[in-house]
Structures are given as structure tokens and as C-alpha cells.
């Protein structure tokens, strides 16, 4: 009954997250994802004819803040960069994402 997740779909999802995975991992994840979907499919058994769809489950609405600067919570540059793998003159550094010369 449950749809099977293909290795192609797993590859696509891994690409979107930029996570390299091996062929073997693709197969393992395809099986695991299919199992997860099968569990979620149990929800199909529930009669929802009289239930309104919702975007959330905590019943909150209109949680907003006034437009005020909260300096207490702001980081110094040093704090902001504290956990970065690499920095340069106050910037975070990552491998070049666009090759433009």
C-alpha cells in the first residue's frame, strides 16, 4: 500500500541538502524512508471528514514583537565568529560557491 521511495529520490534529497552519500547509503536510506512513509500512512485510516485542516497544532496566533533593537541579545563580532571553522577579517569563510573570474 505505501509508496516506495526510490534511490533516485534519495539522491535528489541528498543533493538538495548538499550531503554526499554512497550508493549503499542510497539504498539503505530508500528502505528507511519507505518504512517511515508506511508509518505515516497509518494516518490515512483516520476519518477526517469533519475535521478542519490546520497549519499548526499549538493554537497560538499573532505572536509579534514591537520594532525595538535588543542590544542585550546581540553578539559582538568575536562572539558571532567564535564557532566558525574559518574566518577572515571579520567574515565567515567557506569554499567559493560561484566560480566567477
Amino acid at each position: 500500500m505505501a509508496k516506495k521511495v526510490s534511490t533516485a529520490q534519495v539522491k535528489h534529497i541528498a543533493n538538495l541538502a548538499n550531503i554526499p552519500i554512497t550508493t549503499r547509503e542510497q539504498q539503505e536510506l530508500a528502505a528507511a524512508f519507505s518504512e517511515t512513509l508506511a508509518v505515516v500512512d497509518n494516518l490515512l485510516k483516520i476519518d477526517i471528514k469533519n475535521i478542519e485542516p490546520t497549519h499548526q497544532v499549538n493554537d497560538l496566533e499573532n505572536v509579534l514583537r514591537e520594532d525595538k533593537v535588543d542590544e542585550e541579545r546581540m553578539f559582538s563580532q568575536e562572539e558571532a565568529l567564535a564557532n566558525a571553522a574559518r574566518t577572515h577579517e571579520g567574515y565567515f569563510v567557506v569554499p567559493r560557491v560561484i566560480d566567477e573570474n
Partner: protein
Amino acid sequence: MKNTHDYRLICGMEIHAELKTKSKMFCGCKNDPFHAPAPNTYTCPVCLGMPGGTPVANKTAVDWTIKLGLALGCKINLFSKFDRKNYFYPDLPKGYQISQYDIPFCVDGVVQTSEGPVRIRRIHLEEDTGKLLHTTVAGEKVTLIDFNRSGVPLIEIVTEPDIRTPSQAKEYGRKLRQIIRYLDIADADMEQGGMRLEANISLAPAKADELPKYKVEVKNINSFRFVEQAITYEMKRHAEILSGGGTPEQETRGWNPNTGKTFSQRAKEEAEDYRYFPDPDLPPIRLKKQALQRLKAELPELPDMIVSRWHTTYQVEPRFGELLNTTREQASWIDEIFLAAAKEGISANSLASAIVNRKIKTQVGDKPKDVLATYYAAFATEKIDASELDRAIEKVFAANPDAVAKYKAGDQKVIGFFIGQVIREIGRKADANEVRQALIAALK
């Protein structure tokens, strides 16, 4: 060889503008990325995407988005929400951008241009991303990231594909920026990237109803002139491909102002797949009708309304009015001047024409009485005594017997020559019309 006349432009625009709230969209960090003293000085756990950071929406940013919607005649969704747009790129530390997907705050508006209405499909509120700098450090190609801009409130205004010419695209962009500035919700500075333009361009056969099966997106254009040039360039490029039997590739392109050409920016092999879903950190927003009424009442008089009011109240032609309301400051200054002119019985339209055509030198803020004095000095005429006028006419006739003979022989054009000579003879600002009447009478 076919050319662009065989096709018609089908174009829609997406414009982003950073709101000038004091704080960021979902955290209390300072929103002032262009004036920050150094990179990464206006950040916190929320806009750095740290685990546990909890976003809370900025009420002012929500209000301002709705105000823009009201100014553009949009319907406002009383129930709205924020969604996560998932993609992996270093300008977004969370791995997703908080945006709005299926229920934006505003839908179905319109911006009027001289070439026809441009319908607004939607306006939504989202967060800006960090700024990337592609460079080389110690011989290695790297990308530097500054998160001062990360989380700055950003509105996106999307049109229907109603734009039919490159100049209309430019006019639409300018009008939208003018309205945004009237509302005082964004600086919309193009050079710094506070406002960014995107055009979706395709061509359809001129004589067919069918819509094109492709579209090309030209992104990150930072001037209205460039958007006009980029669309003109794309129209030629598409016409060539289409007339050769091909279809332009559906892709994203950039605009190079130095070469005057667009270039392919295609990097993705796969279709975009953002996996939107409602952001569980941000409860939905339900607006009360009263809140909407309050925002509506706060709207200033908008540029088009000012032009038509000047037309009705002071008979100022819209073509002048449109050039005198570029900013709110200018419009209210002009309002004072028109009022003062009306009191003195000066034609507001002649005054507007003189200001627009720079016949008199003025600048926003000049005192109305000074502007009127300048106008008088440049244009107003003095009442010339009839005997003085007659003496001047006699003198001119005596000095130019040939011209008098010409006139009497039927050459009416010499009257202009006489008018000039008489006014010069008087040496003051005589009314040319009065002089003409006196001349005609004298020549009988």
C-alpha cells in the same frame, strides 16, 4: 530576417525591497546593514540560525507590508502565515528562508502606468539573506559571508505578466519605488541593493493569442535603466532564436552593464524544489478588520491622488504634476507654492510649467514668496502707459519704413518683428499681447 515586431513582449516583474524598520524581521538585531561598522556585528542566535534560536515576527514590518498592499489596491488576507523555503546555500545559515508561500499578506493589486495598468499578483514578507563576497584569500578561492543583512525584513512584489514594453517595465519600477518612498517604509536604494529587480521575459507571436511556453528570468538588476536595457536585449535575442525555429532556453540570466548584454547564470541541473511548509516557530497571523481600517487611515496622499487633486483644484496639467510630486517633500512644498500662487491670482499651471521646464531656478524648500517673486521677475509684465506705447511704436515705424510697407502690402509676419522692436524700445517687460493689439491698431 524577422525582427521583434513579429512578436509581443510578455513580461512580469519581481521586485524586492528591504524595509527600514529599526530591528530585523524575526529578532531584535539592528537593521542597518549598509552602515554597520564591520561585518558580522549585528547578529544574534536567531539570524545566525543557531539551534534553539526562536524567531518572533516584527509587528511594524507586518503593518508596513499591509500598508503597501492597501496603497496598491490589494486585497488583504486577514489570515496569513510564514513558511519555510528550504534550500542549501551559505547565505542562509538555517538551511531555509522564512518566507510566505500560499497565503501572502496581499494579493490582486494594480500599479497604473502611462502604458496601461500592471496588475500586482501578490506581496509577501520574508527575511533577507546574508551577503556573500566571492574573492581569493591566500591564493584560495573562497566566499566571505557577512550576516549583518541576514534577517532584514524584505518585501517581494510580484506582478502579473502585464508589461508590454521595456519602457513600461522601467516606469512600473519607478512608480513602485515612488509609492514605497511615499509610505516611508523603505529607502529602496538601488545601488546598495536595498531594492532589487527581476524580470521574467518571453515573446509571443504578435498575431496569436497563445502564451509562450518558456520564460527567461533576468535577476539582480540594480537600476531601472538597466531593466529597460536588459529587456530590450532579451527581446532581440529571443526574436532571433524564435525566428530560427528554436525556443530560448528556460533559465536564469544576469545583466552585465559593462557589455550591455545578459549572460547565462544557469548552475542548477535540477528544478527548484523548495519543499515549503508552515514554519512551526511562527504562529499564524489573524488581522482584525479594525486594524486594517487603522492602517488605511494612516496612508498618506499618494502620488496619483496628488496629481489629480492639483488638476482639479489648480488646473495643473498632469504632465507637470507628475514631475513635481517625485517625493513627498517636493509635493508638499509645491502645494504651498500653488496655494500662494492662487491667492495672488497667478496661474498654477504656468508656474508649474516654468518650474518643470527650469525657466525659473527653484529648489525644494524655497519660500513660496521667493518662488513667486522669481516667477514675477522672469515672466510678469508691466502695465505700459498708452502714450508711452504709442511713442515707442512711432519710433519703431520711423526707423523701419520698409517693414511698414511690407505689412501694408499684406505680409502679416512682420508684426512679430515689430513686437520685439517695440518691447526693446520700451525697455521694460511689456505684455506682448497688448503691444500686438496697439500695433495692429496703429497699422490700420
